[in-house]
């Protein structure tokens, strides 16, 4: 087999050196009952060419050549070629977690740059080296707030990504961490601050909000911070659309920012792998989950980086660790780092402006359901959601996300997203189809 470098001659030599004549003897100490007495019921190995063909065949079973108006946490942004060029280098791709600093300065330096860029983007003091994704960063942020405040309850906005909230509930259930939701304003789509105020109590450790929220709206972070801080809770701000940070005010009032970087050159890939982040204020460093890279010097006095503050982590503190996370998303975080470097200060702004322009062009033709200011996605009331999307599919367009599964009260609405990749002609078709569908008599089968 091509991944196994030894010849049979070498195997025999090595077996001989071990005092063994047959490979089976290497396993003789396993109890008979524990051993598999037959070959695995899996087909024999195939060639590289056949592997390519297998995945091409599967890809052909997926949708091909559709224009896509889905966002909802996963965004269709261009991936600069430099990203794959860099992450394809064996030195990044095939290296381990950088515990041996002397021969891992490449990875350590890029993580230090990553941490810095995340701080610059979010207005926080420190950021970790990545979490699995945005959805798991949310419960980690909640648990962090519980440790930092000594309180136990969590209030989460209904306008936070619904699947993120589901993940939060899974984690919270067994921790004695009650989670309660508060609503959004049906007119503006922004936080229902009165509902938040009503549900706040002195036992609340964290208030979790998202901006832009699940409906694409730049939400009221400052007001949420005032309410949370007024009762001694921390404010956790979530983001799923990182490109928005190129133009939107950073959530500087947050105590913890938990976000998803998929927008930064990470292909949608049917849901992962992506990269999450946790960023926070300096005073909460020791409550943070995940790896951190710090700056130091080597014994010759040269600047050098190393993993640091590791006593928070599971391999040292075991059951008292801040999290059980070990493997993170280093290579994906590197993709984001390259993306941020390529676009840089001007480019990220310009990219955000293009997203804003595209989404507002589309929104100008169909009436957004909510009046709050939106970035690159928005909700539209369309009536028969499935009918609309079926019509669009016939035109090689994947329409917006039907919201009924997550918000029964919005079962007549879709969440539409437009990015710099969205073409004007496709937006015209979508707008046209929506407007026609709005008058039932005009809908033809």
């Amino acid at each position: 087999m091509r991944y196994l470098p030894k010849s049979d001659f070498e195997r025999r030599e090595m077996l001989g050196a071990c005092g063994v004549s047959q490979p089976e003897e290497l396993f003789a100490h396993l109890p008979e009952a524990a051993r598999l007495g037959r070959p695995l019921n899996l087909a024999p190995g195939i060639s590289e060419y056949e592997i390519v063909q297998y995945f091409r065949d599967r890809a052909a079973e997926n949708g091909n050549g559709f224009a896509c108006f889905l966002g909802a946490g996963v965004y269709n942004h261009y991936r600069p070629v430099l990203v794959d060029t860099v992450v394809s280098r064996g030195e990044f791709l095939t290296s381990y977690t950088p515990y041996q600093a002397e021969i891992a300065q490449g990875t350590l330096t890029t993580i230090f740059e990553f941490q810095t860029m995340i701080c610059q983007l979010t207005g926080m003091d420190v950021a970790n080296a990545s979490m699995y994704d945005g959805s798991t960063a949310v419960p980690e942020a909640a648990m962090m707030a519980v440790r930092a405040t000594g309180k136990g309850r969590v209030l989460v906005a209904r306008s936070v990504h619904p699947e993120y909230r589901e993940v939060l509930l899974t984690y919270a259930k067994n921790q004695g961490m009650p989670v309660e939701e508060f609503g959004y304003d049906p007119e503006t789509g922004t936080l229902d601050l009165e509902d938040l105020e009503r549900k706040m109590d002195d036992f609340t450790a964290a208030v979790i909000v998202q901006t832009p929220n699940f409906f694409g709206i730049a939400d009221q972070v400052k007001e949420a911070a005032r309410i949370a801080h007024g009762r001694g809770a921390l404010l956790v701000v979530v983001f799923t659309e990182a490109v928005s940070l190129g133009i939107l005010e950073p959530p500087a009032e947050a105590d913890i920012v938990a976000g998803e970087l998929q927008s930064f050159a990470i292909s949608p890939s049917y849901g992962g792998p992506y990269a999450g982040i946790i960023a926070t204020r300096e005073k909460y460093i020791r409550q943070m989950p995940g790896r951190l890279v710090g700056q130091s010097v080597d014994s010759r006095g040269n600047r050098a980086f190393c993993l640091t503050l590791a006593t928070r982590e599971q391999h040292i503190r075991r059951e008292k660790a801040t999290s059980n996370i070990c493997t993170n998303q280093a290579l994906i975080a590197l993709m984001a780092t390259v993306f941020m470097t390529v676009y840089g200060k001007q480019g990220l702004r310009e990219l955000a402006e293009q997203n804003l322009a595209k989404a507002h062009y589309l929104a100008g033709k169909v009436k957004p359901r909510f009046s709050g200011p939106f970035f690159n996605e928005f909700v539209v009331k369309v009536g028969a959601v499935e009918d609309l999307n079926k019509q669009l599919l016939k035109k090689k367009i994947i329409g917006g996300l039907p919201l009924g599964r997550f918000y029964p009260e919005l079962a007549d609405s879709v969440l539409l997203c437009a990015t710099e990749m969205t073409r004007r002609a496709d937006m015209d078709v979508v707008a046209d189809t929506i407007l026609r569908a709005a008058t039932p008599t005009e809908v033809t089968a």
Partner: protein
Amino acid sequence: MYPENFRYTKEHEWVAAVGDAGTIGITDHAQQELGDIVYVDLPKAGTHIEQGKSLGSVESVKAVSDVYSPVSGEVTEINQTLAEKPEILNSDPHGAAWLVKIKLSAPAELAGLMSAAEYEAYIGAEK
């Protein structure tokens, strides 16, 4: 090496008490075992702690060690210097690097702790 007026625990803490006013620290032996200390976690003043229960922890780069209180009582003061300069725990564990001051609630507990000579014999045997 080990001050005569201190009392010692098997977990390598010391307490120096005058009446019900006590000072708590970790021993020279403890700091040697830990190596370079990088962080000290201490309770807030006013916290009530019980003998044998954790009152905080000290950290080296790759280890965390709980500090168990040698006596019961209320924390009256914590050593603020340690936040900025944890390294003094390596250089002066029996002096400048005390951890907390405490108002003893059961001074009789002192009698159950080791004297300097007993402690030295104990760590000698542990080796």
